[in-house]
């Protein structure tokens, strides 16, 4: 505070020395006597004053005067709060921008400040250069005229990564020999190179750091916690509790990107991590493409999901003759062991499993299928299914030379046996995978032996379809594209009968590479060695997903190293059917606030404005002198005490305006009556009450923007304790378990309804089962409304004033649409005049409006004005939301203006009369 204070004429402060002298002087002079003519003096004569202490001025009056005089002196000395120390610098100026994702949250403010700095440099005639640490230029810095740089500032965008670790050397080379002052726009987060770079800049000249005070948030990648998805939000500073809304986004069944789930992450005070666990249906979870912190514009606040978050549904089918085989001999035993941790397994008959539309179907040694089964299976594969088949004695024995469409290759009958007791050769080992194979790069364990296999017919396409083969070149795994899907055949059994492959780790890795099982969360070099990954989507610094068509593929090893930069952008990378998300924030990453050396000047982005305090101090001093006048008059008995109340009010109003503290209820009443306020009933359900509040806030916001109604923040009313008559409209959402109001509350409600109030009942269930009939909330509504004095109701007629109070509407949707909404019925004798589309309806406002469209959720907006709840789907849904807002506006208009719009039926008559 003091450091932010400066004086224009500090010498004047010397006059403060005179204050003690003034004190002494004032103290010596008592207040002048007042002369009064008074006949009663005859009775006074001879009386004696018993004390003589009022001879001098009382100390508090002295203090008051001293303060006033001190205020005057200090005021005239010209104090200025937050003075701008505009010392014109000289020499080149380097503007350094962190440019990381963390600075994206207030990038416009940053660029605006950069432009101010550049403008200042231009005024001082300093050459300047801009250096973005996330993407430093390679050649030496080139200082140019500062105003020439200004146009470039708008073109600088934040990147989705942190500055590189070896930044200090890079900068050293490009700033070789130059001296300059530095203004560093920091994102406020620590990173490894920061200290070195700061030291470097300090060595070159003065360093000033400008960083924003806005908290930085980031999301760690989502991961599995049992069968639920856990996602962790992190933040840099641990001050205070804070809630964040996390949303999961992904395509809906129609392929339109939608919000699929939402959760609230709560940071406890002092915690930098907040974990949310989402229990989602598999089908929904597999569609999630990314998680976002809603309302935070930064790549760190977005985390893309990949295969690690998908669990494929795998159907397992084995031939079963009813024989009781030992577990270890079961054809599916090893598959189960391999798949259970990473996939959702389905068992059952083929038909049942296909109904569940699995991603993968594994058939172990099933040779013959009925025609129906073949047909449905073919369709399924054609639509994108992955059929994996394992060979076995049955396959070998079956008459398989017929071209089975569900086999990738034609097989020779009988198979072959190598290295068995009855054969000559050694058991075969595997040949290294070729580059075309999806298994390329997987290390081959030495101990894999194949003793039996089925053998493919030689075929021109055989080589191309083979993705793994034995050392002698016979195919071990073959694959064929079939429509959208593919068919894979392991030429060995799924158990250890024919080979040791199912016993090895390679088996698991192969399943994973075939995208049958989900890969473990952690990538390893081996997993990715030798693969090339094509970026599908990349994130920009703001966290927006950009298409990556123009970017080249990258080797898989780089994905593990995670050295994010211009060459390895965060995003979603794919290889065949596998996808890997490279997120800005890794699973263990911690973000912490930047620590700067004491020698560095740190400033906020938004500087406090220079405020001259002279006026304030002089006003204060004058006010004190006014009080002094009153006090002196009072002391001298000159102040008429016949009206003590008015004088007290005058003094209070002058000196202590805020002392007049009213009761809480009064404040509330004032709050409710000084502006239009929408109200909602407290139901006791915290989440629902919050939705009601947010809904009415959203509606108030829309009203404020679109109409001349400018409501204040909505107020929650407790039916039992609060006065209702202040509110034009009360929104009452119905829950099954809300308490029934007491009879006093009903009296109040009835009085409210009779005197022109309006209650909007919302069952929020979309009128399932029709109005008031069988839904639990409908019954609750009936129970709640029974004691209320509600007139006869009817569904809103098409000529009701609600349909044209502000917008022309015929439907009143909320989150639900198309349900009838009930209002007070029109009088039976309402007539329709000639040529007028509306009946001449009753006066006044309908006291109740009953519906179940969950309007508050459709109106609800967060503090940034973004809708909180999805409505409908796609553009149709947005249209529905718009309509629901329009309904809200019509509703409030109707409440506030009554049947004003209905009166327009008389317009033709009026015009007629005017014309004559």
């Amino acid at each position, binding site marked *: 505070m003091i450091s932010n204070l400066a004086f224009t004429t500090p010498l004047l402060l010397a006059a403060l020395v005179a204050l003690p002298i003034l004190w002494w002087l004032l103290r010596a002079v*008592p*207040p*002048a*006597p*007042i*002369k*009064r*003519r*008074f*006949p*009663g*003096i*005859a*009775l*006074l*004569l001879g*009386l004696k*004053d*018993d*004390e*003589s202490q*009022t*001879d001098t001025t009382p100390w508090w009056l002295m203090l008051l005067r001293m303060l006033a005089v001190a205020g005057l002196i200090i005021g005239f000395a010209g104090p200025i709060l937050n003075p701008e120390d505009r010392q014109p610098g000289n020499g080149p100026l380097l503007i350094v921008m962190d440019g990381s994702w963390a600075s994206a949250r207030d990038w416009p403010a940053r660029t605006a400040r950069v432009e101010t700095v550049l403008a200042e440099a231009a005024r001082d005639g300093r050459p300047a250069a801009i250096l973005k640490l996330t993407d430093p230029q390679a050649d030496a810095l080139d200082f140019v005229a500062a105003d020439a740089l200004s146009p470039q500032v708008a073109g600088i965008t934040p990147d989705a990564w942190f500055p590189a670790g070896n930044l200090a050397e890079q900068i050293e080379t490009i700033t070789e020999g130059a001296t300059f002052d530095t203004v560093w726009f920091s994102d406020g987060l620590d990173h490894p190179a920061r200290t070195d770079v700061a030291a470097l800049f300090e060595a070159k000249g003065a360093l000033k750091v400008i960083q924003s005070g806005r908290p930085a948030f980031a999301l760690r990648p989502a991961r599995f916690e049992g069968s639920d998805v856990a996602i962790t939000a992190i933040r840099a500073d641990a001050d205070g509790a804070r809630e964040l809304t996390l949303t999961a986004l992904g395509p809906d069944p129609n392929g339109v990107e939608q919000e699929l789930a939402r959760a609230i992450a709560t940071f406890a005070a002092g915690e930098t991590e907040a974990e949310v666990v989402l229990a989602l249906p598999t089908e929904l979870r597999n569609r999630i493409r990314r998680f976002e912190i809603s309302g935070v514009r930064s790549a760190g606040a977005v985390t893309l999901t990949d295969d690690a978050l998908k669990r494929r549904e795998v159907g397992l089918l084995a031939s079963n003759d009813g024989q009781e085989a030992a577990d270890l001999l079961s054809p599916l035993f090893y598959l189960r062991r391999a798949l259970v941790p990473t996939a959702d397994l389905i068992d059952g008959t083929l038909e049942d499993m296909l109904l569940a539309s699995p991603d993968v179907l594994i058939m172990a040694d099933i040779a013959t299928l009925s025609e129906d089964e073949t047909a449905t299976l073919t369709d399924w594969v054609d639509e994108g299914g992955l059929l994996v088949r394992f060979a076995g004695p049955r396959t070998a024995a079956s008459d398989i030379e017929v071209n089975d469409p569900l086999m990738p290759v034609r097989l020779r009958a009988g198979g072959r046996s190598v290295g068995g007791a009855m054969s000559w050769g050694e058991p075969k080992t595997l040949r290294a995978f070729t580059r075309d194979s999806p298994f390329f790069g997987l290390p081959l364990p030495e101990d894999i032996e194949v003793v039996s296999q089925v053998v493919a017919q030689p075929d021109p396409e055989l080589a191309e379809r083979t993705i793994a083969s034995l050392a002698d070149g016979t195919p071990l795994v073959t694959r064929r594209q079939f429509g959208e899907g593919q068919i894979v055949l392991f030429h060995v059994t799924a158990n250890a009968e024919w080979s040791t492959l199912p016993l090895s780790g390679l088996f698991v890795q192969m399943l994973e590479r075939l995208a049958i099982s989900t890969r473990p969360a952690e990538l390893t070099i081996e997993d990715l060695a030798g693969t090339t990954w094509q970026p599908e989507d990349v994130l920009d610094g703001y966290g927006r997903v950009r298409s990556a068509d123009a970017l080249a593929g990258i080797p898989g090893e780089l994905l593990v190293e995670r050295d994010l930069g211009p060459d390895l952008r965060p995003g979603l990378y794919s290889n065949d059917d596998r996808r890997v998300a490279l997120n800005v924030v890794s699973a263990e990453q911690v973000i912490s606030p930047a620590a700067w050396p004491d020698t560095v000047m740190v400033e906020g982005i938004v500087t406090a404005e220079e405020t001259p305090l002279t006026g304030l101090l002089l006003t204060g001093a004058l006010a004190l002198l006014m009080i002094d006048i009153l006090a002196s008059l009072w*002391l*001298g*008995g*000159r102040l008429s*005490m*016949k009206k003590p109340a008015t004088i007290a009010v005058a003094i209070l109003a002058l000196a202590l305006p805020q002392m007049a503290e009213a009761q809480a209820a009064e404040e509330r009443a004032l709050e409710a009556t000084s502006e239009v306020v929408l109200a909602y009933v407290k139901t006791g359900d915290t989440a629902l009450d919050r939705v009601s509040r947010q809904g009415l806030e959203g509606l108030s916001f829309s009203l404020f923007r679109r109409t001349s109604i400018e409501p204040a923040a909505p107020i929650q009313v407790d039916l039992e304790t609060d006065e209702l008559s202040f509110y034009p409209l009360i929104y009452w959402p119905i829950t099954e378990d809300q308490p029934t109001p007491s009879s006093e509350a009903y009296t109040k409600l009835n009085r409210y309804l009779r005197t022109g109030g309006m209650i909007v009942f919302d069952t929020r269930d979309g009128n399932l089962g029709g109005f008031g009939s069988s839904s639990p909330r409908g019954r609750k509504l009936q129970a709640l409304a029974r004691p209320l004095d509600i007139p006869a109701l009817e569904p809103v007629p098409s000529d009701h004033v609600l349909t044209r109070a502000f917008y022309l509407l015929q439907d009143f949707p909320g989150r639900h649409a198309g349900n009838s909404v009930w209002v007070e019925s029109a009088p039976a004798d309402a007539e329709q005049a000639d040529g007028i589309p509306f009946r001449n309806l009753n006066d006044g406002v309908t006291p109740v409006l009953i519906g179940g469209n969950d309007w508050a959720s459709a109106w609800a907006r967060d503090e940034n004005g973004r809708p909180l709840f999805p409505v409908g789907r796609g553009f149709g849904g947005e249209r529905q939301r718009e309509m629901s807002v329009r309904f809200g506006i019509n509703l409030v208009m109707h409440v506030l203006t009554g049947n004003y719009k209905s009166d327009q039926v008389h317009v033709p008559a009026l015009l007629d009369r005017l014309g004559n």
Partner: protein
Amino acid sequence: MNQDPAINPAGLRHRAEAHASAFPALLAEAEHLAATVLLGDHGRRRSGMGDEFWQYRPAVSGDPQRTIDWRRSARGDEQFVRQKEWQAAQSVMFWVDDALSMTFTGGDDRPTKGHRARVLALALCVLLNRGGERFGLANRGTPPRRGEAQLSRIAGHLMAPAGDSDYGTPNARVLPAGSRAVFLSDFFGDPDPVSEALTRATDRGVKGTLIQILDPDEEAFPYDGRTVFETMSGNTRFETLKAGNLKDAYLKRLADRKAHLQDLCRATGWRYLCHHTDTGALKALMWAYRALDHAQ
């Protein structure tokens, strides 16, 4: 040219006109006040010497024959005596304090004590005039008479400029024996002349009423702080550093003064009223009128 307005003819005329203009106003105010008192309450209501018919009563033995009203008696066999209402005229003398102390008022919203005293006196005169009594002003030795001319005369005397002394003393020598008297003053002056006047008046068979007229400020003493008090003429000064501290002592002395006046009245058979200028004059008027009436 002599600029003393008291001698300067123009100044004299100016003052005369000012007073003359105020005089009908005073009279009008008094008439107005008196008009609120309904007649019918004022008659003697007893038979006696007078001109007005009072009642016929049956003659009883012992009535002189000439008192029998023959016209009434001729209508029947009984004899009636015609009685007249008793109409002994009273003399009521007023002393209205015209000292400077009576020119005081504590606020703009109420009249001076002197004004209130004059209005009360004149209104009483109007009522007495209507009741056929005689009245006079003891200040100037005006002999008691009746009639509109006497009213005008008294009003003129009341409008005369105030005396130059701070406090007034009642003049009891001019009171006719057996008459009634009304003294209107604040009685802030020396109490001895008052008691002397009262005893002397009682000696001459004069009974009457003391009306002490006080300003509310004199009753409440709402002063504080360093103050110099002066009499209305400015001849006497009293300085205090903290007037508020003197309040209790002042109020006690005021109460003593009132008690002294009441004792005096009790001893002499007079009646005492303390009237404040912030209350309406009518109440005091009614009280005084009834007091005069009952004293008979």
